C-alpha cells in the first residue's frame, strides 16, 4: 500500500516523545506503586491537556446551546462546533464539510447507516458483506438489518496469518450484495485491511461501502476520495478526543437523499402538526442538543494530531509495533495471534498455560494496562480457536520502555505460573 512509502523514509520519526508525553496528565501516575504503562489505546486513548482545556473552556466561558441562540455565547459555541466539522472534513480529505455528521461514536454512526439507507437498499434475498475480523459494532447492526429485511449476512474469511482472504472476493460480491461494511484496521489483531481493493470490487457491483475506521483514523492518513467509499465512521475518543464524540462521513448526495434517523429539535426546518420539513444535511441527522463539549474537544484533539502529523505518528507507532513483535517473539511461551502483511495499533497474543484474564490481572499489578478478553470480536476469536487474548495497543505517547515493561511483567507472570 502507498502508506508504506512514507514510513520507510529514514528519519520518519520526528517526534519529541518526552514533550508529547508531558501533555498527557493521566500518564503521569503510578499504579500499584509502578509507573503507569498504558498499552490500551485501542480501547481509548489518553487525552492531551489541550483537549481538556478546550472542553473546560466551553463550559466555563461560552456554555450555551448551538444553532438557535441569538446571543453572543451561542454564536461563539456554534462557530466553534461548526469549525470542528471543517477540521474533520480536512482530516478525511473530504471536499465538503456538510458531509460530516457528528454522532456519539462509531457504533452510532454505523447504526445510523444501517437504519436509514440500509433499510431502503437491503431487501428480502439481498446480501450484506462484512469480514471475519469485524468489531461487534460492525456486525450486530448489519445482522439486525438482515434479520429485519430477510437478507443474508456474508463474511469475507480470514487466513491463519490474520489477513482477509480476498482471492474469492468476486464470488462473495454479486448483484445481490447491497452493502459491504469493512473495518479498516482490526481492533483485535491489528491487521490493516486492503479496503481499497474491497471497495473497488463492491462499487463495480453497485454495492454501498461502509468503512469502520475507528482503529485507522488515529494511526494513519485517510483520504475518503482516494478510498472511494460511500460512508466512513470513527470515534473521537480513540483519536485523543473525548468520549461521546464521533463522526459519520457520507457522500453528500447519499446523505441528502437519505431520510432522517431520529426526530427532534435541530433536525427540522418547520414543524406543524400536519407536516414537518427537515433541515438540510448534516443537521438532518443531528436531532437534539449534541454533546457540544465533546465535539469541541474533538476539534482540539485533531489540532493535536495535525501538529505532530499522522505520518510521524504512523512511523513512530510502526517502529514500536515492530520492536514489540520482535521482543514478544523472544519470550518463550508467548504466541502472537496473527502475522498480518501490514499492522497498525495493536498486537494480540496468548501465553501458554495462563489464561489472558490472569495475565491481565498480574500485568495491572505491575502498572501495565492491557486489554484481556475477546475485544468485542468474538467471531474472530473463534476463528483462531481462542476465547480471549491479551492485547497491547499503542498510541503517539507510547515508548520503547513500555515494550520492555510489558516483557518484564510477562516474565513475572511466568514465575507465578511456572
Amino acid at each position, binding site marked *: 500500500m502507498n502508506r508504506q512509502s512514507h514510513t520507510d523514509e529514514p528519519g520518519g520519526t520526528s517526534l519529541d516523545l518526552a514533550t508529547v508525553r508531558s501533555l498527557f496528565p493521566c500518564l503521569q501516575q503510578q499504579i*500499584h*506503586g509502578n509507573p503507569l504503562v498504558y498499552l490500551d489505546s485501542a480501547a481509548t486513548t489518553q487525552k492531551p491537556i489541550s483537549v481538556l482545556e478546550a472542553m473546560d473552556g466551553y463550559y466555563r466561558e461560552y456554555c450555551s446551546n448551538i444553532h438557535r441562540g441569538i446571543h453572543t455565547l451561542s454564536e461563539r459555541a456554534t462557530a466553534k462546533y461548526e469549525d470542528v466539522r471543517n477540521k474533520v472534513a480536512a482530516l478525511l480529505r473530504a471536499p465538503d464539510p456538510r458531509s460530516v455528521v457528528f454522532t456519539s461514536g462509531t457504533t452510532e454512526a454505523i447504526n445510523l447507516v444501517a437504519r436509514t439507507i440500509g433499510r431502503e437498499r437491503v431487501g428480502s434475498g439481498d446480501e450484506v458483506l462484512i469480514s471475519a475480523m469485524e468489531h461487534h459494532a460492525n456486525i450486530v447492526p448489519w445482522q439486525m438489518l438482515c434479520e429485519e429485511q430477510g437478507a443474508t449476512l456474508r463474511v469475507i474469511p480470514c487466513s491463519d496469518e490474520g489477513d482477509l482472504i480476498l482471492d474469492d472476493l468476486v464470488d462473495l460480491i454479486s448483484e445481490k450484495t447491497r452493502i459491504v461494511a469493512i473495518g479498516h484496521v482490526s481492533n483485535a489483531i491489528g491487521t490493516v485491511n486492503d479496503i481499497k481493493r474491497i471497495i473497488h470490487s463492491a462499487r463495480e457491483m453497485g454495492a454501498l461501502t461502509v468503512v469502520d475506521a475507528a482503529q485507522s483514523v488515529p494511526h494513519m492518513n485517510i483520504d475518503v476520495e482516494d478510498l472511494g467509499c460511500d460512508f466512513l465512521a470513527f470515534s473521537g475518543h480513540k483519536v485523543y478526543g473525548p468520549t461521546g464524540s464521533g463522526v459519520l462521513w457520507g457522500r453528500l448526495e447519499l446523505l441528502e437523499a437519505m431520510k432522517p434517523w431520529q426526530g427532534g429539535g435541530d433536525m427540522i426546518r418547520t414543524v406543524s402538526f400536519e407536516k414537518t420539513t427537515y433541515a438540510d444535511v448534516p443537521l438532518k441527522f443531528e436531532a437534539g442538543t449534541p454533546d457540544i463539549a465533546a465535539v469541541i474537544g474533538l476539534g482540539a484533539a485533531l489540532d493535536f494530531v495535525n501538529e505532530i502529523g499522522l505520518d510521524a505518528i504512523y512511523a513512530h507507532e510502526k517502529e514500536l509495533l515492530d520492536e514489540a513483535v520482535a521482543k514478544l517473539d523472544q519470550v518463550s511461551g508467548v504466541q502472537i495471534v496473527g502475522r498480518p502483511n501490514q499492522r497498525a495499533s495493536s498486537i494480540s497474543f496468548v501465553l501458554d498455560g*495462563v*489464561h*489472558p*484474564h*490472569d495475565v491481565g*490481572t*498480574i500485568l495491572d*499489578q505491575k502498572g501495565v494496562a492491557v486489554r*484481556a*478478553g*475477546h475485544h468485542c470480536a*468474538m467471531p474472530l*476469536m473463534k476463528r483462531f480457536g481462542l*476465547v*480471549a487474548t491479551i492485547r497491547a495497543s499503542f498510541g503517539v505517547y507510547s515508548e520503547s520502555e513500555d515494550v520492555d515493561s510489558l516483557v518484564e511483567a510477562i516474565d513475572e507472570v511466568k514465575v*507465578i*505460573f511456572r
Partner: protein
Amino acid sequence: MNDFRDLYQEMILDHYRSPRNFGPLESQNLSARGYNPLCGDEVELHLYRDGDGILRDISFEGCGCAISTASASILSEVLKGRPENEVRGIFEEFHKMITEEGTAPEGEGLAKLKVFSGVKNFPVRVKCATLVWHTLIQALNEKEEEVCTE
C-alpha cells in the same frame, strides 16, 4: 498495594493446573451452565442430588482462568456429600468473604475456601470466583437458562 500473590496462592495454581472432578458425570440428575461474557469463560456443572437432598457427586467441565477453574475444582471437592441447604448457606458466606468484610465459611472441610479471600482486593475478578457458585444455585433451583455474570 494488593499483592497478586495473595490472589494466586499455591492452592489456586495447583487446582488450575490439575482440576479435580473434571469431566462429565454419569450419575448426573442436575446440571447448569454458566457464562462470563467479559472473558468468554464457560462452565458446565454436573450434580447428583439424592432423594434426601444431599449432593452425592459433583463434577464440572469448561472454565478458563485460574480463579474460575480453581473455584470450580475446590467447590466440587468441598461440597461433595453435603446437604443442599447447607450448601446454599456456604455460598452466602463465601460471597460475603470475597465482596465485603466477611470471614471465611466456618465448618469442617471448608478451610480450602479461604484461599479465595484475596479476591476481595481484585473486584474485577469476583465474577471469576463466583461463576461456578451461581451456576450451582441455578442447577439446584432446576432453572434451565444459562447463568450469565453480566
